[in-house]
């Protein structure tokens, strides 16, 4: 599958819906199971939210580029931005009891990313900051 699929939006919360819809459409076209599509959408939601809230904090927000790179047995989802580098570091499991008691808790999204994706890489270079999320297709 040689196609790459790119969607670029301003780093605003409005972009999240467009990214979800884009992932769903690409997965449908590539006949990727719904379960994987949902996991990719949720992981994208969390990662893009971090970029919007932290990466572009204090800046006139620039772009977030979402790129899906389907390969034979996996799909790579790359989120690129040009704000402050903000690496989503793996976190411990969130405190479920605190959540049930409606107490503030953070890190659930990052925990989810690391739990559902098969590989997570983050790097910054001349082209910006890149979060590369890999999901194996063959295990499903």
């Amino acid at each position, binding site marked *: 599958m040689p196609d790459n699929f*790119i*969607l*670029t*939006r*301003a*780093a*605003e919360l409005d972009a999240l819906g467009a990214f979800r819809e884009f992932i769903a459409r690409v997965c449908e076209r590539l006949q990727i199971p719904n379960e994987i599509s949902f996991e990719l959408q949720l992981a994208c939601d969390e990662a893009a939210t971090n970029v919007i809230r932290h990466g572009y904090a204090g*800046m*006139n*927000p*620039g*772009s977030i*580029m979402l790129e899906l790179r389907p390969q034979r047995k996996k799909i790579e989802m790359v989120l690129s931005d*040009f704000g402050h580098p903000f690496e989503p570091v793996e976190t411990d499991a969130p405190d479920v009891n605190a959540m049930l008691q409606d107490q503030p808790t953070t890190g659930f999204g990052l925990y989810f990313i690391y739990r559902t994706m098969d590989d997570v890489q983050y790097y910054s*270079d*001349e*082209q*910006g900051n890149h979060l590369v999320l890999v999901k194996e297709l063959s295990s499903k």
Partner: protein
Amino acid sequence: MFRALRLKQEPVKVAPEPKPLTIDEWMGDAQFPLGIRTINALPHDAKQRFYRTLIPPALLGRLGINPILWRGSGHAVELFAEPASGKVNLSINNVQDPNDAYFVLELQDNATNGIDLNLIILNDPDAEKFGIDFDAEGKATHWGTITRNLAEEERAMRAGLAPAQVRAGMGFARQVLQQLDVFLALCARQAVSLEPLTYASAWIFEKNGFAYVRGHKLMDDIQREFQPGGTLHAALDGSTPFRQPDAWQTVRGRAWAIQDGILEVIGERWRDLRMIKVVGKHAGVETFPNAKY
């Protein structure tokens, strides 16, 4: 006319200057990224070979210039690439008026040792020239960014030009930017950045694959507020020649209104936008869908 796409101040370096490379170092690693300063340190003929890739041969042909010799038909390519400088400037000027440029391309190592595109000018020598670049007292307006020559700007607008254009363009913007991608790949660089001078130039760069380091939200805000019912749409009240009611429908119309300061009604100014193009990749940004230029 020209299309001046970006102007900026000298960058403040935050990364160390790269050292000149030896031939062995050049030969040793094709992935080693080269900066402008490194190329400028080469002998003149060697750097000319590099910089030759930046000008589309068809553009030179249009001006009657030999693409190898860089001269002919009364025109010549001038190369400014001083050995200790991180800046290169290529230009083709009206031989009778050195301030009348037909083509300018300027690149510069930026503060983080990336490469910035400082300026592109692409003017049709046969098109009428408008004096928007100098005010009534003969002082430079920096293409209307510092001061404005309102009478000439209005004449230029009515002739179909965008802000910062002194003549109609030659139509080579896409080819020059494609050549720039080739040059960057040759230098093992991954991206080029710039600051769009006007709304129209930002739109052109979007069409050519650029994304925004800063200012994407502003472009979205501009699009939204120029729609009927929006604040910018309402401010197109005919109060100046640059704020005509139908200006929201075209890139140039919006650009002239923005040049006229209309963004003040949404608490903004045209400033601090920065764009980036990743070599070989089109970002697909379209902040003014189905736009008419």
